[in-house]
């Protein structure tokens, strides 16, 4: 290949590439708006006593299956917690087996692709590797995307937000039809608990802005941009102190539980109670309830409690 040929070919390929990206790549296969229909008619399913995957399968059975949330051809954005460079037994990140099962389920329900990512706190490659999350996503058949470069993020407006009126959000979240949030329940030094709402800090570029501008308010504000269609909370091994990173296994309690709900506030409220807190004592939950982001009063909810 001479230089001219090389240049010509390069030009053609890159033109084709950008053509693809600007046309075909953007056509949503199905109209967005993946409003679920709660088949099991439960607002929240809480399972305890089993292994993570076992409890997950049972919970989804109660919820009416992943088909309720993922329609054939849709793309799924999955937000696990893979923020820390610690092994799975330290439970600072979401259980990898659980993630693999969820990815598998989404694809079984007909998802065209499942994209998982997390803007990590520790070094991203080590976190993706040592948390076992990247391997799990691949094992399930999905794709783990990097989220450590600003180029992957696009600015969005958050109407109705008090402090976080704009945020740079990972482009895959913007493009995906379904959003599934898979946090791990942990103690948190500053926000007392970290569950589903706090987990969404890993889909934005500038976390410091949140810390600088009333953290609790920003956490609640972000839910106005996009609430996950489904929240699956890993509470198998729960970090009850020294969170969110933990120092060793002695920070953990084996609660062997799992919570599933389409309502991000309800699931956070239930999870907070498992750590011994009243939901209204947690700043971002209280604010979210006031802003009407979800339902915090668990007495009003149709909750299915299962032991396996």
């Amino acid at each position: 290949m001479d230089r001219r040929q090389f240049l010509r070919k390069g030009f053609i390929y890159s033109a084709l590439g950008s053509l693809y990206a600007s046309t075909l790549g953007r056509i949503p296969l199905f109209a967005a708006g993946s409003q679920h229909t709660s088949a099991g008619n439960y607002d929240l399913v809480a399972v305890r006593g089993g292994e993570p995957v076992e409890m997950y399968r049972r919970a989804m059975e109660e919820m009416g299956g992943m088909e309720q949330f993922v329609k054939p051809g849709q793309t799924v954005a999955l937000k696990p917690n893979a923020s820390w460079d610690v092994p799975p037994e330290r439970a600072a990140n979401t259980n990898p087996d659980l993630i693999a099962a969820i990815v598998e389920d989404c694809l079984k329900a007909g998802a065209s692709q499942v994209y998982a990512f997390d803007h990590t706190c520790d070094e991203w490659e080590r976190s993706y590797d040592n948390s076992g999350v990247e391997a799990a996503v691949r094992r399930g058949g999905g794709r783990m995307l990097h989220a450590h470069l600003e180029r992957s993020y696009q600015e969005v407006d958050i109407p109705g937000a008090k402090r976080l009126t704009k945020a740079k959000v990972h482009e895959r979240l913007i493009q995906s039809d379904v959003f599934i949030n898979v946090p791990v329940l942990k103690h948190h030094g500053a926000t007392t608990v970290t569950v589903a709402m706090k987990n969404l800090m890993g889909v934005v570029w500038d976390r410091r802005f949140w810390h600088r501008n009333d953290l609790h308010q920003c956490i609640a504000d972000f839910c106005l941009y996009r609430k996950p269609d489904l929240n699956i909370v890993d509470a198998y091994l729960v970090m009850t102190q020294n969170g969110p990173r933990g120092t060793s296994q002695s920070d953990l309690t084996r609660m062997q539980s799992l919570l599933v709900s389409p309502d991000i506030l309800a699931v956070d409220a239930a999870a907070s109670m498992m750590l011994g807190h009243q939901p209204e004592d947690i700043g971002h939950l209280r604010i979210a309830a006031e802003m009407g982001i979800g339902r915090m009063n668990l007495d009003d909810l149709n909750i299915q409690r299962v032991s396996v």
Partner: protein
Amino acid sequence: MKLYHLKKIRIAVSLIFFAALLFLFLNIELPFFKQTGNVLLHLQLFPSILHFLAVFFTISALGFLLVILLTLIFGRVYCSSICPLGTLMDMVSALARQFRKKKQRRFYFTSNRKTVLRYTILGATILLWISGSLFLLNLLDPYSNFGKISTSFFQPAYIWLHNTFVFTLERFDIFAFRPLSMHTLPWGVMLVSLGIFLAIVILAAWRGRIFCNTICPAGSLLGLIASKAYYRIAFTEDACTMCKKCEWVCKAECLDSKSKTVDKSRCVSCFNCFSSCPNHGLHYTHIPLTAKTSTNQGEVANPQNVEKRNFLLTLTAGLLSIPLLRRKAFPQGTDTQSPGMIPHGDRLPVTPPGSLSHENFNNHCIACYRCVGACPTKVIVPAFFDFGLEGFMQPKLDFEKSFCNFDCLDCTRVCPTGAIRKQTVEEKQQIRIGVARFLSESCIVTVDRTDCGACSEHCPTKAVQMVPYRDGLFIPQVTPQYCVGCGACEFACPTSPYKAIYVSGVSKHETAQTIDHTEGPREDDSDEFPF
């Protein structure tokens, strides 16, 4: 073996060695090249000597003895094969010659040996080194400069290419490869690297190995040793027709067919001359040192004596210059100024874990930036004058940019000089390279009365804990005995322009305490959900 094959062998070996070292600096891990590169790392002359001085007798620290032995037998083969900068210069020189007319591609013998300049530089370098400053060595050592050039220019270029490829694939929904993180070096360091790179390119393009035979301290030292080499290149009196073809390809400009002499101290054993000679007019053989190869009429009667004299002369000259370059040493032990009262500017630089102390680090780091390129979080950056003139251009940890990942050992694995020692994960997690200081009065929690906790969130040892403050808020509290100085708190802190929590280095690394880790996970005693 025919002598004209030697050049081909030399080129093949040097290219393999060059690739192996380049791949090391680019963090490209190819099986054969990686092992070769790691062996070669131990064969770099000055890094190996530094390593030996740092750790004394280990097999890997004795590479320099092998190099000296090799030089004593075959001459400066080091400069032609093992030295990556030498190979780089050969490439530049060969390339530059392609753009010239045939006749202008030639080298010419020069009798100007620049002896005074050569040994003054070598003497000053060694003397400064003995006096505790690696300033000149870090500026002139060929391995160090190859490292600087690679890390400053080759690695970014490679990362850019790699990432362009990765991002192109991503457009087609292929996510098989990960993009690499680009580091940004301080502009001052980039300028110095650029200056060195340009100087090397210009010198090589102009006159081949003039750098190696004038400035390079490794070249000068090996030149001294090579003049006693067992095998040497020599003219075959009867066969040489004085056609000068060998002189035209001698990039060290050390062959003189007129007087039939070879300047052994300048010859880099590239063997180009053998391939160029149509007549077998050169041979490679043992020549007893006493035997005079030939007398140089025009030159000084005994050049070796002059060299010795000059060497001694420059030694004394160098000695006198030491007080000018000495900088006062760092205070020993932990600095004990109270937290919250010191402006950030007063803090000590932080050296990588495993570097033991500022003193050890400054005395052994050759500023090759291998750790800079290997660091996955890019927290290690070349400093400029942070360590003073003694540690000129040596790296430090910059927590504005990033922080040291708790479980990572990458920098401790790559250092060729022993400036950063190998560690186990358990050891590394307890090494205190600095201590966090919390400035309560500029903290978000105190000033804005909102929760934050970014520092504590990132703290891997819980040296920074959130404790109850007022109105249900939590405020950071530093427990220094747990702090390892990783800088995660400083990096995460959202205040600007000055962070409310920051890390100051400790000049002698310490051992941090750890929170009790003996228990496993507790069992949950409740049998139903609390809701």
